[in-house]
């Protein structure tokens, strides 16, 4: 696989021993060991909050460990800033790209460097960056502006940025979280080619299949401690990995009962809408959704999924017709659509789905504060609010000190549970769920998926918008694929073919019907 030729000569690219990193009230890394050999791909796994990013940030010079020893290429290092780490050849690609959208690729790569000094002479640098690309097979037009690039291309720019700065050790923080399946394949090829050129790579992930596909060795963290250190990838099963991460067995195949869908709840006909920039985001989309059915919308991010959810929930104007239980819902205010029995798990759980400085209790009553027994004509009955919120906290096992804890203090998974608890408790007849498991760890994903299936059994019609094909395949009855605002086709999940869905997602194929 990798170029682990001689056992004795080259020192380890990275050696971290007994690293302890503490935050107020949290022991983020508890005597963690990690080794990265020259020219290998090493995966770092763990649930959210396991301390993966913290550990990597300390290697990139962002945090200083309380104790422990760090060696890079056999030499003890003590980083005081990211600059120190860069000088030792460590480059980090963050999950959220640090790029200036209105500047070109070359300008972004040169940003913050000592050369060029005053006159930019961009064409000369464009040439040098082109050479670098040729060398590693990372194709991006150096003169293109960042905003014109796809997410995958932007990621390549980030990688080029670290390479241009002379990085030999690359750290990638959840590099695949933002990519489409085809782009993930490209990234895997890139990683291989980088290793072939002598680079060493550490990558953080909680997607088990990618890890098994590309890594040579892996280290697993759980709650700040190492549960598996540098074990080889051979013979490792996904179930074993999941257990190492979560600390208990995880059921992978959620149980979906066979059931016949009922009446049509949602009927969307020729709906078109514009995005925030005023460009067409949805083009004459038509589909329907039945009682007790989960319809998945598959597609690469930014192909109109967000707009579709907003149009149905009344948050975005549109043309065409949307019937919910026979009543016209297009261009109706959100409040009216809530009264139609539609609940909504929004894509942006902190920006839209919750009020950060309000308590869990106040967040759970957002949709029914005006209904008995919580709200009477003028006032809110806080005794019922407490009872209601306490019940939900227990029923959905929301982990928080109390129902008075502010929403912003919750972890992603717990916040999502608050939102889900709220949306399910207002007894929806239909539910629009957008990326309900994004960024959550295995345990939380499992519980949220089962909640969705439970809703399906209760006869709720669910529109599930997700970028995780695997999730769609295991939860949905039917899957519709969206590309550039058009539905490319609807397929039954049982007979879905991954390749075809992938082709539809990139617009290269359209299903016959």
């Amino acid at each position, binding site marked *: 696989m990798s170029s682990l030729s001689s056992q004795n000569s080259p020192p380890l690219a990275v050696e971290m021993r007994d690293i302890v990193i503490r935050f107020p009230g949290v022991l983020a890394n508890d005597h963690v060991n990690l080794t990265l050999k020259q020219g290998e791909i090493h995966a770092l796994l763990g649930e959210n909050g396991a301390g993966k990013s913290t550990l990597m940030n300390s290697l990139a010079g962002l945090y200083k460990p309380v104790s422990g020893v760090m060696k890079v290429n056999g030499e003890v290092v003590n980083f005081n800033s990211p600059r120190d780490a860069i000088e030792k050849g460590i480059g980090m690609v963050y999950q959220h790209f640090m790029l200036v959208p209105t500047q070109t690729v070359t300008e972004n790569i040169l940003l913050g460097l000592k050369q060029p000094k005053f006159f930019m002479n961009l064409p000369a640098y464009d040439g040098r960056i082109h050479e670098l690309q040729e060398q590693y097979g990372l194709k991006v037009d150096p003169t293109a502006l960042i905003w014109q690039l796809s997410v995958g291309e932007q990621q390549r720019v980030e990688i080029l940025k670290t390479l241009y700065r002379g990085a030999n050790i690359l750290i990638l923080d959840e590099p695949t979280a933002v990519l489409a399946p085809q782009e993930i394949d490209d990234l895997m090829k890139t990683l291989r080619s980088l290793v072939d050129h002598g680079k060493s790579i550490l990558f953080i992930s909680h997607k088990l299949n990618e890890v098994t596909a590309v890594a040579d060795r892996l280290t697993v963290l759980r709650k700040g401690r190492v549960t598996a250190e540098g074990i080889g990838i051979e013979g490792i099963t996904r179930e074993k990995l999941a257990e190492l991460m979560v600390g208990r067995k995880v059921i992978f195949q959620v149980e979906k009962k066979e059931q016949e869908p009922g009446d049509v709840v949602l009927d969307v006909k020729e709906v078109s809408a514009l995005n925030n920039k005023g460009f067409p985001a949805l083009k004459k989309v038509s589909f329907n959704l039945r009682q007790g059915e989960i319809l998945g919308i598959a597609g690469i991010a930014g192909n109109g999924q967000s707009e579709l959810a907003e149009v149905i929930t009344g948050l975005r104007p549109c043309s065409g017709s949307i019937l919910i239980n026979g009543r016209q819902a297009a261009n109706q205010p959100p*409040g009216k659509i809530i009264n139609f029995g539609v609940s909504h798990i929004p894509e942006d759980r902190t920006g839209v789905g919750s009020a950060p400085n309000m308590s869990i209790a106040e967040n759970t009553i957002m949709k029914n504060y005006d209904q008995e027994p919580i709200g009477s004509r003028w006032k809110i009955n806080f005794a019922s609010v407490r009872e209601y919120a306490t019940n939900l906290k227990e029923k959905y096992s929301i982990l928080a000190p109390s129902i008075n804890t502010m929403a912003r203090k919750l972890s992603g998974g717990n916040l999502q549970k608050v939102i889900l608890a709220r949306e399910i408790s207002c007894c929806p007849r239909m539910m629009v769920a957008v990326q309900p498991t994004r960024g959550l760890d295995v345990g939380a994903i499992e519980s949220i998926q089962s909640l969705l299936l439970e809703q399906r059994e209760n006869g709720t019609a669910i529109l599930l918008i997700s970028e995780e094909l695997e999730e769609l395949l295991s939860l949905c009855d039917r899957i519709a694929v969206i590309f550039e605002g058009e539905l490319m086709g609807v397929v039954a999940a049982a007979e879905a073919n991954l390749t075809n869905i992938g082709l539809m997602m990139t617009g290269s194929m359209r299903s016959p019907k």
Partner: protein
Amino acid sequence: MKSPFTIQIDKRSEDYPKWLPSATSLGAVIIAFIFCGIVLKLVGGQPLKVLGYFFTATFGSWGVFSDTLVKATPLIMIGLACSLAFKMKLWNIGAEGQFYLGAFFASMVVLVPLVPPDSPKIVILTAMVLMGMIGGAVWGFIPGILKAKYNVNEIITTLMLNYVAIYWNNYWIFGKWSDAGFQMTPMFEKTAWLPRLSDYAKQITGLSGITLHLGVVFGLVAAFGIWWIMERSRWGYEIKLIGDNPKAARYAGLNISRNIILVMMISGALAGLAGMAEVSGVVHRLQERISPGYGFTGIIVAWLAKLNPLAVIIVSILFGALIVAGREIQPSGIAFLLQGTILFMVISSDVLLKYKIRLVRNKEEKA
């Protein structure tokens, strides 16, 4: 050459106890007084004497305490007006204008006149209260509807409307309503005066010269009313939700435009009521400069009270005292020095809510 201790600043990860905000604010006020004392000492003053005089001049007797409360009255209502709007993150800095317009509308009752001048006192005063609130509400409605319908920045509109209101008042008191060419209207008949404690001096001795008027009751009732709205009512929940995350509020089906207009109008009405109370309870005529900047001090009051309606009462009394002291203590700048220092200290004390500050002994450096 390392000191044995370092100051360690940690971000608070858990919720702070409920009493902490009040405690830090109180501590900040005390530190502000100490700081001003040091400044006075440095310029050769006698801080303790000044402090003592400050208290006797503002809280020392029923007479001066009543003066303090009279000054606090408009601040309470304006502080509440600002608290309500700020809670929804509507930056109404137009309380000054709303105050003037409230005063103007209330004066219309007497000067137009809107009710027959020989009506009973209760009729005239009720009309004045209503008109004062309507006047302020109108002045809140304009920026409210502009914000709701066209997303016009309310900071700009409310600020600009302050000047419009002041010059509108000037137009009438310099012109049509001028009392023999002076920039004031004739004094109102006694039937348009809010009852004062001194009115009862005949029955109860000791009340003579006590200028406290019914306006303070308006202020207190309003404070409890706004407290109830914010803490107990459905509408208060909506206001908080919109203030905390308007996108979430829209998603939860709230009508944001309607609430913007409503909050601006209620906020304006409270400031307008303050204007009414000032002309009817203190000045007894409409004239220039009926407000020494109450509308702006009210913003500070709301902020120092952390938008808590009940705390607004206490902060207003403190600021009322500062206004009275400014009149009594020479140079009058000392009161402003205190006012500014208090604001600075209280705002800085918020750091303690976000961070824990500890003194830790330095450990031996490890090799």
